[in-house]
């Protein structure tokens, strides 16, 4: 539409100036923005304040401002316009006039100098800062003080005097120095409970070994004492408290391997590292007889490389595992049956090692030491060769002189004569003769020599010498092997001990390191496959030897 805008300027000097402007536009836009057709420099006018546009053949004003416009003195957001209407926008006045020839719509606009218009007292003040009266600074200082008092000052009173410490720690309301704990105390140390100073003797000083040694004693690898290698290391360097998971024992392989892979020359130990590939071959401790000269057999514990000891387990016992555990069975008092390993090899309480096998408990039910088929319950004592002969002599003397006197009389006494001294001596000699005959049978053929090394001897009181037996029972005294720990679903005795094939008691039925390595791997889980058990040094070996129990008590 064609619009005529008539600008009326009132001169300060007096007089009125008019200028007309005709524009083509769909609507008259009124506002403070520069793109408005009618730009008003009045801060109460919005950037796009209102627009006049044709509507239903007439003209219409619409305001986008909430303050609206005033048409003929009435505040309105929109209104129909006709010539003669007076429109107020802020402090500016527009009049609708008759449109001249060639224009669709016309307004006159009076430019005024006091465009800012009248003002109310400003009711807008700068908003206050602060949170309901608390400035940021005040909140900060308060919080800081709370933290400092409750986390430090109050707990710290426990350091000043034992009485204060008792009060602070005893009160359920007061924060005490347990707040300073970096982690829970290990159960083993729970008796020291809240008394930090039992271990932390001086503030700002690391826990000393003296504090540990108040209750504990140990040998080997103790700082400064038995091993110059350990040097200045403190107990607490390895035995770390206040950690989660709580674990006082350091089981890390490097703890040992750092030194033991390359020990100083003056230490007579083989280098040892990761079990997977740097552990030396096993050595077994065997109790071996020193080859007998004359007199008593002596025994000597020898550490022998396991591979060199496979057929060297001399104990002077003759024993054939293969026969005893054969699947087809062996003749026992209960008939022919297979013997289980566990019938003789019984674990000690706790299950770590096996109890010693003894004649009385494990052999004698089959290997009876009977000698008289007429009296099978009568046996000779075991372990006492002289006693055997004596028991036999007594038995046959009694038979000849007492129990069966009539029968003896038949042979040694002339009829009608009393038993003379001579008769008795003859009977005794006969009894002894018979006893020696039976003894010879027992020692050399029937009983003893089944299991023992028996030799004839002419010089001694007895004509036989039985080599004493000592079974090695602790093959690895420097490792903590436990049978119980190895009693799993996938293992049997035969997994490690090849008894089925052993015909001699000199066979050493101990598995070598490769046998262990079938399950046991490196101390570092990352070097193992999924089946291998991480096996650091401490799994089998111990670092210290305890010499005393806790509080200096005796070890069990």
């Amino acid at each position, binding site marked *: 539409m064609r619009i005529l805008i008539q600008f009326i300027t009132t001169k300060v000097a007096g007089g009125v100036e008019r200028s007309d402007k005709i524009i083509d536009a769909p609507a008259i836009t009124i506002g403070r923005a520069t793109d408005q057709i009618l730009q008003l420099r009045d*801060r109460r006018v919005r950037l796009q304040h209102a627009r006049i546009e044709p509507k239903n053949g007439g003209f219409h004003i619409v305001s986008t401002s909430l303050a609206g416009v005033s048409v003929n003195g009435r*505040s*309105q957001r929109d209104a129909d316009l006709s010539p003669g209407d007076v429109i107020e926008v802020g402090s500016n006045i527009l009049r609708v006039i008759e449109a001249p020839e060639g224009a669709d719509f016309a307004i006159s606009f009076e430019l005024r100098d006091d465009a800012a218009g009248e003002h109310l007292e400003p009711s807008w003040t700068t908003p*206050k800062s602060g949170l309901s009266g608390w400035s*940021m600074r005040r909140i900060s200082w308060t919080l*800081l003080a709370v*933290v400092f008092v409750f*986390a430090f000052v109050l707990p710290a009173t426990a350091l000043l005097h034992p009485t204060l410490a008792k009060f602070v720690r005893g009160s359920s309301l007061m924060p005490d120095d347990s707040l300073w704990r970096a982690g829970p105390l290990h159960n083993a140390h729970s008796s020291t409970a809240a008394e930090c100073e039992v271990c932390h003797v001086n503030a700002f000083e690391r826990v000393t070994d003296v504090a540990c040694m108040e209750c504990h004693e140990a040998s080997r690898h103790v700082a400064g004492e038995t091993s110059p290698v350990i040097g200045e290391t403190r107990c607490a360097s390895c035995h770390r408290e206040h*950690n989660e998971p709580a674990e006082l024992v350091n089981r890390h392989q490097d703890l040992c391997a750092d030194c033991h892979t390359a020990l100083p020359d003056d230490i007579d130990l083989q280098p040892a590292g990761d079990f997977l590939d740097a552990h030396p071959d096993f050595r077994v401790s065997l109790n071996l007889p020193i080859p007998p000269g004359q007199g008593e057999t002596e025994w000597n514990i020898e550490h022998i490389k396991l591979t060199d000891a496979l057929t060297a387990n001399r104990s002077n016992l003759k024993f054939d595992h293969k026969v005893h555990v054969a699947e087809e069975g062996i003749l026992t008092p209960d008939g022919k049956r297979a013997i289980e390993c566990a019938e003789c090899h019984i674990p000690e309480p706790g299950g770590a090692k096996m109890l010693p096998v003894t004649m009385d408990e494990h052999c004698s039910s089959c290997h009876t030491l009977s000698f008289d088929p007429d009296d099978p319950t009568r046996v000779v004592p075991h372990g006492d060769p002289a006693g055997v002969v004596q028991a036999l002599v007594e038995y046959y003397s009694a038979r000849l002189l007492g129990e069966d006197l009539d029968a003896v009389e038949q042979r040694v006494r002339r009829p009608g004569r009393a038993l003379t001294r001579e008769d008795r001596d003859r009977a005794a000699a006969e009894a002894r003769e018979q006893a020696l005959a039976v003894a010879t049978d027992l020692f050399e053929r029937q009983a003893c020599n089944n299991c023992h090394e028996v030799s004839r001897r002419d010089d001694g009181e007895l004509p036989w010498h039985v080599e004493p037996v000592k079974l090695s029972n602790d093959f690895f005294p420097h490792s903590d092997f436990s049978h119980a720990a190895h009693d799993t679903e996938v293992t049997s005795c035969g997994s490690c001990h090849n008894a089925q094939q052993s015909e001699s008691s000199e066979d050493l039925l101990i598995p070598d390191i490769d046998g262990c390595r079938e399950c046991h791997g490196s101390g570092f889980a990352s070097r193992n496959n999924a089946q291998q058990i991480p096996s650091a040094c401490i799994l089998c070996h111990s670092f210290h030897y305890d010499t005393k129990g806790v509080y200096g008590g005796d070890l069990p």
Partner: protein
Amino acid sequence: MHESLLEFRKRFYLWAALLLVAVSVAAYWYHDPQEPPNGGTTLGYILGTVGALLILWLAWFGVRKRSYASTLGTVQGWLSAHIYLGLALIVVVLLHAGFQFGWNVHTLAFVLMTLVILSGVFGVIVYLRYPERMSRNRGGAPRSELIDELEEIDRRSLRVAESLGADFHEFVSSGVQRTQLGATLWERFRGRDSSQVLVRRNNGETEFISNPGQEAALDWLAEQQSMSGDAETVAAISELSALIRNKRKLLRQLGADLKLQATLEIWLYVHVPLSVALIGALLVHVVTVFIYW
């Protein structure tokens, strides 16, 4: 060209923070302390020192942003680094502690630090979003323009009220003077309108009544309108009502504007005091660890 504080210098500090995190995680992964990871191992001490220095440096931002004359980097750069390295701090400190927590002063420091960082994350989000939301709420105009518009409505209302007599003039001018949105930051944040208006009851008594959202004023006007028989008065009251309804709308817009701005400020009331408390807890943490070494 405007550059978001997160995009500053092609996210240089994001990469720096990621590098710090990566180095810390890798060190944690490869370090084998022969005990459960904790602040007392070699790596624990290193990460703890890095964490403590980071906390002090992050807190120093509060000083740097006020040092207008400082040429030590730009404040925008400092803020970008403050955000990214502040987030990285959580990882550094978790690794320092070996993920061990308890009811103790050490975990207190961690909790305070986490709250500071979370409030900071909130701050970043509102800084990135709220200015635009405020601008949209005001329709692109500055707040002063809304206030000018409000004044215009008030001026017109007063003019209409003058034609209605002294009671109405008193009513409108008291309403103008006692229009109040959020005197304190907290009230602004809650969006509280504590405006009042003076009304004259039928028995001649006058009293100030609470006028949130100009509702009470509109009620009073409606009441007056119903009691008035004179057509001209009715028309004028209705004009006044229309103006006050517009004012109500404008006040809502202004209230929303104030609330958005208050949100931009109020998180700092958590962030800054907790940072100060954190520095205190950090000091207590370090000192007590070495008291009972």
